[in-house]
């Protein structure tokens, strides 16, 4: 178990290193940093001064090491637009995105699993088939368009829900949260639903497939032969088996949810880091872009590690084989 964890940690470090190379090459080789750092009307002396100050006259590998040193110390430069350390800027927007992403994941579980259970138990029923047809739409509809339609119907036509922003926030643990106020919750309903749609479809399909597969297995018949109630058979025996793939996939999808928050945050003007990165790309605020990318990479690697760990906790077969 320890060797396994160690090996995974080493792998994770290598992936992160690979990503720093990609990001560094992308920003400093493909793009031209001088152009961004220096105003066009600067004279030649000013140019050279800046180039020397930023170490752009040094060989590439030295520049990379310098960059890497900055990454390790959490120093990724200052935002050109906000004149603030890029990492602090991203960090300030981080909670809003996480709040939205966690709510979306929670929604996809709360909605997806019951729907999947129903569709799995009644695969030929009208409702069961309707759920499946709906899940296909959940996959193929473009996120941003669904977001627009939600705004059109619930904000413009019906006027039930606010369309943009986080609403009133309240402080908890030194951070502002929307879910603590009524107004904030109302602001969260549409963005969270929008972000959750794809994953609701995914979770419900996984759950349905799991129910269909497990109900046919002998252990279910044996559980019934023991005289267990139907609810215990379904919610303990079958669920425990289904949860293994569902939890794995939800964990792995969390990264995608954070990435897709870029779209949802833009549609609903949710002030998270996704909105920030789009604005930054549009004005070429590179330190912020780099900070965002590094943040996302760390997030992804951490998630993958956590999911693997969770998997071994959930499935006794993997857990013990790993230990031996």
């Amino acid at each position, binding site marked *: 178990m320890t060797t396994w964890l160690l090996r995974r940690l080493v792998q994770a470090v290598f992936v992160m290193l690979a990503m720093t190379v990609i990001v560094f090459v992308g920003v400093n080789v493909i793009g031209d940093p001088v152009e961004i750092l220096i105003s066009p009307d600067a004279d030649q002396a000013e140019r050279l001064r800046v180039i020397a100050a930023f170490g752009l006259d040094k060989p590439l590998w030295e520049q990379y090491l310098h960059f890497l040193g900055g990454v390790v110390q959490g120093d990724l430069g200052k935002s050109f637009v906000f004149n603030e350390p890029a990492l602090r800027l991203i960090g300030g927007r981080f909670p809003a995105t996480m709040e939205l992403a966690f709510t979306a994941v929670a929604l996809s579980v709360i909605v997806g699993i019951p729907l999947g259970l129903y569709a799995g138990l009644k695969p030929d029923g009208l409702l069961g088939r309707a759920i499946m047809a709906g899940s296909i739409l959940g996959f193929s509809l473009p996120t941003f*368009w669904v977001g627009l339609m939600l705004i059109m119907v619930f904000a413009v036509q019906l006027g039930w829900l606010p369309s943009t922003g986080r609403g009133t926030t309240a402080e908890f643990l030194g951070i502002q949260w929307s879910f603590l106020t009524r107004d904030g919750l109302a602001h969260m309903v549409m963005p969270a639903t929008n972000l959750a749609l794809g994953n609701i479809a995914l979770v419900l399909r996984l759950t349905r497939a799991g129910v269909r597969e497990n109900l046919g297995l002998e252990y279910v018949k044996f559980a019934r032969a023991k005289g267990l109630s139907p609810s215990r058979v379904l919610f303990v025996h079958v669920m425990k088996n289904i949860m293994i793939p569902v939890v794995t996939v939800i964990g792995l999808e969390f990264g995608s949810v954070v990435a897709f928050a870029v779209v949802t945050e833009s549609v609903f003007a949710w002030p998270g880091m996704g909105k920030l990165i789009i604005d930054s790309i549009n004005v070429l605020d590179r330190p912020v872009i780099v900070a965002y990318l590094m943040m996302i990479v760390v997030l992804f690697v951490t998630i993958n590690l956590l999911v693997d760990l969770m998997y071994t906790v959930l499935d006794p077969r993997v857990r013990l084989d790993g230990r031996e």
Partner: protein
Amino acid sequence: MREETPFRRFVSEFAASKVAVIGFVVVVIVALLALLAPLLAPQNPYDLAQLDIMDGRLAPGAKSLTGMVFWLGTDDQGRDMLSGIMYGLRISLSVGVGSAVIAGVVGSSLGLLAAYVGGWVETAIMRLVDLQLSFPAILVALMILAFLGKGVGNVMLALVIVEWARYARTARGAALVERRREYIEAAECLALPQWRVLFRHLLPNCMPPLIVIGTIQVARAITLEATLSFLGLGVPITEPSLGLLIANGYQYMLSGKYWISFYPGIALLVTIVAINLMGDQLRDVLNPRLQR
């Protein structure tokens, strides 16, 4: 009695699903609308001489000062939305199909190469594929556009980089199965040149799964391009795809002028769903594991 050719059998199997046939018909209509837009569209929406700002933001069905009917309304510039959508489809489809084809060629070649050569080449290619696929497409695309900047060419490049990995994985999988077949062995025994074995013998037999992936990838590419354009990172304003049309209408939606965003969205939706329906049936027909 007509002769039973593989192609005829394919057609009849494909036609077994009514939904898939509808999908196919819709795809053909959409493609024709896009191709023939200059002939069919009521106006050229990018010829400023044909536009009148006085016709701006008219509701569907309204008439222009010159008596032309705007069936789907107009945008803020007084552009006929129907024409705008037809021209938008041109951009969306060409970017989607173009990137899917390029990614298909690049990805399949690398996948075949990996399967055929093996060794460290295979390891290197497949590691790259794994790394690439572990990040969501939107993120990879954002990253590339952040490095390169906007523009049609860069969007296509981003889409190709996002998509090639799936083709590579599929091609390698199919090629590994085909490699063990006797006809490859026979070709190698004849001492045919390697490129010939690879492209004339191996590739054609790996095509079915690649076609299936290709169909679905076109839909994915169109969606992704629309999303990027909506975010303002995709095609420039001079070449508006469906995604950009939707983005342009977004600000007017809050004031109830829904049509500027709504109809391009419907066009996008119909296109994507139709391609996916077609792809589903193709997968069933072309999947060798399902063949009786």
